[in-house]
């Protein structure tokens, strides 16, 4: 019986106090927050030369991925979908490609690339295109236009370009950053937890 008491006490204490730290070791990318909300029937088609560009500001260093929701009804697009990332002077910074076969309709898709160490507070533009796709292989991207009533994007999502026209707002994207070190992730997780415990009113 004493063994059981010791085992369960240790197991529960480990689970509550240490296991989250163990989990934290597995975190390879940190998101900048929740994906902004979007309107499900407000979408733009992307195929062939019809692409979409998004201007945004990276608030942290080590930008490593950009994620957004993509519609691909009946997996009709089986061609390459390319995200090209430019700096403000339109120099290509990173390029990443996924295949439409891996894009299930409406799924949140993450475009992962090598980390950009000096991305903090810099403005970037990415273009999303599926150059080999025909009209029957269109993928659809959700968007929010800040100038429309009741529609707002966070300020770091600056503007988007579609059909050569520029609009305020844009795609409901989430940015991902590579953590500086595992220990920093653990410190930040426990630090934030501790702060919330203290601010419990």
């Amino acid at each position, binding site marked *: 019986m004493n063994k*059981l008491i010791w085992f*369960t006490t240790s197991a*529960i204490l480990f*689970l509550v106090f240490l296991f*989250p730290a163990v989990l934290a070791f597995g*975190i*390879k990318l940190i998101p900048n927050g*929740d994906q902004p909300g979007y309107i499900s029937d407000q979408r733009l088609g992307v195929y062939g030369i019809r692409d979409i560009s998004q201007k945004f500001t990276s608030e942290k260093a080590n930008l490593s991925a950009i994620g957004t929701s993509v519609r691909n009804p009946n997996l009709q697009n089986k061609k390459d979908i390319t995200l090209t990332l430019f700096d403000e002077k339109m120099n290509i910074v990173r390029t990443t490609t996924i295949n439409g076969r891996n894009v299930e309709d409406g799924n949140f898709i993450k475009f992962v690339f090598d980390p950009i160490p000096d991305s903090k507070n810099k403005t970037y533009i990415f273009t999303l295109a599926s150059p080999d796709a025909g009209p029957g292989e269109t993928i659809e991207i959700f968007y929010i236009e800040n100038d429309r009533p009741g529609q707002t994007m966070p300020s770091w999502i600056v503007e988007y370009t579609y059909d050569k026209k520029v609009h305020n707002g844009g795609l409901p994207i989430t940015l991902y950053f590579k953590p500086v070190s595992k220990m920093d992730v653990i410190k930040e997780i426990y630090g934030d*937890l501790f702060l919330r*415990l203290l601010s419990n009113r």
Partner: protein
Amino acid sequence: MKKLLVLAIILRLLVAGFLFHPDIKTIDFQASFLKKGVFNIYTYLVENKKSLTLKDDFVYFPLTYFSLGGYQWVASPFLGKGFDSWLADAGSSTVVENPNIFRYLIVLKLPYLVLDILIAFLLMQFFEIKEDKRKAFVFWLFNPFTIIIIYAFSNIDIFSVVLTILSFLMIKKEKLFSASLLLGLASGFKLYPLLFIPFLFLAGRNLKEKIILSITPLITFGIIILPFISKAFFQSALVSGLTTGIFTSDFATLALSLLFFYAALFDKKINLLNYWISMFLIIFSFALFHIQWLLWVAPFLVILSVKKPEYSWLLFLFGIIAFAIPALFQDRYMTISLFRIYSVWFDMLPTPFTFIQKVYDPVNIQTVFHSILAAGSLVMTYKIFKEDE
């Protein structure tokens, strides 16, 4: 004993405050309508679905609504002003990042703690020898499984579990009518105790008693649900997957029927506790069970472990396997997402299902575990009856 009790309570409060399954928020959001004067939660939720932030149906039975809603009304002063807006918050991150979540969870799980400790004391009543009483107390309070099931998964089945234990205490005292009444009352929270009616029928000493014992739970259950009978009630609770899930497996129905016919045709002196335990061992062997269901049988396995200590390690092994099966579901809230209070960054981690999928089919592993659990459970069922002979 007092020191052990304090330690047991501390462990429970830690899990209650730091591990979060969204079911507790959904159920308590629904139960919060009692303090606003809503009596029939089933029709209310269906009729107001469009305007509600959480759109789930109320899948439990009326006594759950009144118990949780009533408790929330009493506990309101401890929950504070922001509690109702937290309940109604549909945001995935804002809910777990709310600094008051620790208090909300501990207050909401307090009734579970009271019932959980009550179970420890009720289990002691099944034994005469002091050492056995102490074993039952420790086995219940210090097995890791029920702590996780009750406090991490916020298992409201504990209401019906307490009533089923009381029912078996009545059976021990040979008060079969009270036992069947308590099983009916327990089904007012969750339907599963009604599965035992065929065995209650067999336990009756004559036809009149057999009929009374099998009708009493049904009438009790009928009285509880009578004011709520409606299309909404049928669809939300009575035929929901949570209620009918056991019968989605043909094998479970077959094996339960076999158990009944064995009792009816071969067993001359029916030991109801053996049938109760066997019934659940069979269900968990063949049905795709929710992890919360394991609580239905847990206290009775403690009784079995004390009576037959040689089964303890085997039952502990069964517990690990039974936990591993649902942990391999592609459901984040079975594992990693229970820790979202610590950080929503854990959303970036793969589930055990996704992780294992890289090297092997996790469904196959689930099947292997389920087969091992089934084999072990069936052999144990056989042994329990054989030893009684």
